[in-house]
């Protein structure tokens, strides 16, 4: 752990742990400068990503390891949050993780869409030695267009 304001969370793949991770993510996003709408998106998308690890990665086994690391990132003076979610499900084919079109109304297939809609950067990658999946998510606080809207008045 390199950054002094990073937080690492280890849980098992039981859905009952989702609420604790959501609370931690929300508090970290707040500290890293995200406003409430941005925080809500980040919290929902992390929930979706963890749920996918539980459902698709661990096939609903509740004893798999999930590591969530929260840290601050910066980009062009904007502050943001990076969330890294790592599992130990073994080899994964990241090509198969894809968004479906939202035009069709059917249950399921929303999670990956929500993740891409909510975060500015989304990267699925296999972990070294085929240990499992690593998902890296970054979201920056949108710059308030205070100047622009002031100009318009």
């Amino acid at each position: 752990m390199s950054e002094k304001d990073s937080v690492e969370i280890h849980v098992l793949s039981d859905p009952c742990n989702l609420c604790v991770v959501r609370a931690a993510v929300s508090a970290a996003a707040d500290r890293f400068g995200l406003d409430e709408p941005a925080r809500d998106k980040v919290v929902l998308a992390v929930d979706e990503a963890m749920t996918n690890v539980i459902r698709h990665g661990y096939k609903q086994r509740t004893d798999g390891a999930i590591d969530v690391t929260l840290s601050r990132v910066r980009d062009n003076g904007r502050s943001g949050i990076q969330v890294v979610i790592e599992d130990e499900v073994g080899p994964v084919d990241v090509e198969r993780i894809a968004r479906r079109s939202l035009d069709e109304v059917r249950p399921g297939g929303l999670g990956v869409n929500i993740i891409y809609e909510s975060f500015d950067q989304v990267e699925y990658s296999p972990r070294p030695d085929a240990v499992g999946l690593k998902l890296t998510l970054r979201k920056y606080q949108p710059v308030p267009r205070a100047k622009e809207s002031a100009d318009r008045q």
Partner: protein
Amino acid sequence: MIDTQTIADGMIVRVKGDIDFSRSPELRQGLLGALRDGLDRIIVDLAGVQYMDSSGVAVLVELLQTQRKRSQKLVLCNMQPKVKGIFEIARLHLVFTIVNTVDAAMEA
């Protein structure tokens, strides 16, 4: 997690608590288990739901499809702001009938 109340043309289902993947299977069982022919109108009152993820939304989509297949109605009401958020991301706010109050849901 859910309370049901019979009304003239169907029933009102009141859902309580955050709905994530730790609770959506139970919600699914409760909602789909209560279904039967002749429920012309199901009103799902979401006043008590501050948070819902896509696993909860999937249950409601399934319920909608079942009702539609039977030419019966599903109306959602009292949707809280954060829950509205996920319906909007999923572009489902235009697919569901969503009204503000239970009273409006009776007429919808």
